[in-house]
């Protein structure tokens, strides 16, 4: 923002935290167990500031995995558009997505990193179901580099 004297022009600031309510966390992690053994996925609706996510999420919206696979996911195109329209109606945006890793760490795979180029401003949440307890982590992927964003449970 030109009005922000502390920020270099054109530089977007990653949010300090991604904020999830307890019930949003449960929706996300629950959807991943519901989808198991396939990968599960969904979209976060929230707010952006100057094209970067603020970290605020108003809705975690589970979507169908069109790929129906334990190795890859693709959010159903109809669910994606419905989420976008819902966000537009309340003056918000899609600010990120989640998917599960059923047998690997909660870290973006090379495919996740390359696909993130389509939505470079989003928060990317990965839920690992590898161990007994689920692990949820959030990332930004900027120019192919993975940056973890701490998740604050509200």
């Amino acid at each position: 923002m030109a009005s922000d004297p502390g920020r270099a022009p054109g530089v977007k600031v990653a949010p300090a935290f991604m904020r999830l309510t307890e019930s949003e966390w449960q929706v996300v992690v629950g959807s991943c167990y519901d989808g198991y053994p396939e990968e599960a996925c969904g979209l976060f609706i929230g707010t952006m500031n100057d094209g970067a996510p603020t970290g605020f999420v108003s809705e975690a919206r589970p979507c169908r995995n069109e790929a129906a696979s334990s190795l890859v996911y693709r959010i159903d195109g109809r669910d994606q558009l419905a989420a976008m329209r819902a966000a537009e109606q309340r003056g918000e945006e899609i600010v990120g997505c989640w998917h599960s890793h059923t047998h690997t760490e909660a870290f973006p795979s090379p495919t996740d990193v390359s696909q993130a180029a389509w939505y470079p401003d989003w928060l990317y949440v990965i839920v690992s179901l590898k161990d007994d307890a689920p692990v949820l982590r959030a990332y930004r992927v900027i120019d192919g580099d993975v940056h973890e964003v701490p998740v604050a449970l509200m």
Partner: protein
Amino acid sequence: MPAEVRLPTVLRAQADGQATVAVEGATIGEVFSALVTQYPGLRGNLLDDQGGLHKFVNVYKNDEDIRYLEGLDTKIDDGDDISILPAVAGG
């Protein structure tokens, strides 16, 4: 038929920064041909090497996913809205 094509943020730089572009065509395929002729930078993001729809691009006619209509052969009527959204996918 002139159709309004709505571009996702990530592709606007290849269309002179425009969010919507008006293009002529009787089908989605014709609209896409006209679009990539006008803005060649969009070609690799919209079409595959055989001229088919790029694997990771969703296209909607009036909010209906064209893969559930007739794909690139889907007919366009005057005033139809076409939206392009990159798929959300990964591994």
